[in-house]
């Protein structure tokens, strides 16, 4: 018993979760499963992007999708129809997933026989950026109607992202959206960020994204 002294901790609130996320990454490495954390605002086109991605890759990769978005129990059916295994996670109204919740989802899902699992995080650009899920990489979808200034308003999201999908480029002519400015702002926050302008609706630009996923999964399994 230690009744007198003040316990000096001086640790980041995120330190425990970060350590847990590292453990989860190692576990997934051991079983050869690549976990991608997909983040975005609600309505950015996550489900359409996933459906098209699954259709393109289902014959070469064994795919799974873990849905954590609060409004997405309808989406799980769409994912299964597109040809991937899907599970709906219950976050209890939480605004993000942490490594422990992700691990519970992975266990319930049973991912040993999957090459690529995409975690559809809760739809917002704040909290999911703060909590490492244990994924190998983070992808963010930003859609044209949301505006090109998002990297200035949500800097952390663009710092933790490895890939940015700029979705709905088919509607670019109708919006005051400057792709060059977006690229400039995003690279200010994160010079290494890969940016793929796409339309999940028409399929434009999606091939570069599929190739990125193929390379990532291959590297993860071989290293």
């Amino acid at each position, binding site marked *: 018993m230690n009744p007198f002294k*003040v316990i000096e901790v001086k640790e*980041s*609130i995120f330190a425990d979760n970060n350590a847990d996320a590292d453990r989860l990454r190692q576990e997934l490495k051991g079983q050869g499963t690549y976990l991608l954390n997909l983040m975005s605002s609600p309505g950015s086109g996550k489900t359409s992007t996933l459906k098209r991605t699954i259709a393109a890759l289902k014959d070469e990769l064994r795919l799974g999708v873990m849905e954590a978005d609060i409004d997405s129990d309808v989406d799980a059916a769409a994912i299964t129809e597109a040809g991937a295994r899907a599970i709906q996670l219950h976050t209890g109204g939480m*605004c993000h997933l942490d490594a422990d919740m992700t691990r519970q989802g992975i266990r319930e899902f049973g991912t040993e026989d999957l090459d690529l699992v995409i975690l559809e995080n809760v739809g917002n650009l704040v909290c999911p950026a703060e*909590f490492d899920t244990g994924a190998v990489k983070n992808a963010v979808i930003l859609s044209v109607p949301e505006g090109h200034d998002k990297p200035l308003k949500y800097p952390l999201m663009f710092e933790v992202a490895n890939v940015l999908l700029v979705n709905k480029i088919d509607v670019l002519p109708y919006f005051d959206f400057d792709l060059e400015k977006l690229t400039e702002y995003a690279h200010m926050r994160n010079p290494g960020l890969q940016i793929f302008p796409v339309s999940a609706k028409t399929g434009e630009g999606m091939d570069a994204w599929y190739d990125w996923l193929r390379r990532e999964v291959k590297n993860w399994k071989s290293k």
Partner: protein
Amino acid sequence: MHEMGLMDAVLRMVTRVCEEEDVGRVDAIVLEVGELSGVLPHFLRECYEAIIEDTPYEHTRLEIETVPGTLYCHDCGHEFRPDLSDLRCPQCLSRNLTPRTGRDFTLKEIIPVFEEEDGESGDET
């Protein structure tokens, strides 16, 4: 709400440290909140009140110390405390800025209840 998830992480970390340090009851949890961490002390307090209900922390106080935020401008080298509604360098208007301080959200310390005999302290109002 953003701060609810954060408070949940705070309490989990406090519980972990208390187990390691063999702390019984906790008088106060002291957090350091950076001005640029995106964490709002007002909402932290509100979430804290809700999250401690029916837990061992029901009588534990929450203390929040704010750490000032400063930004560094990569274009002109100016270092300044930003106006959070207009994140541009006041000298050259550049947006190419990096936080120098005030980014972190930290559990600074835990103050255990002073247990002299087996007094019923910790019931402060």
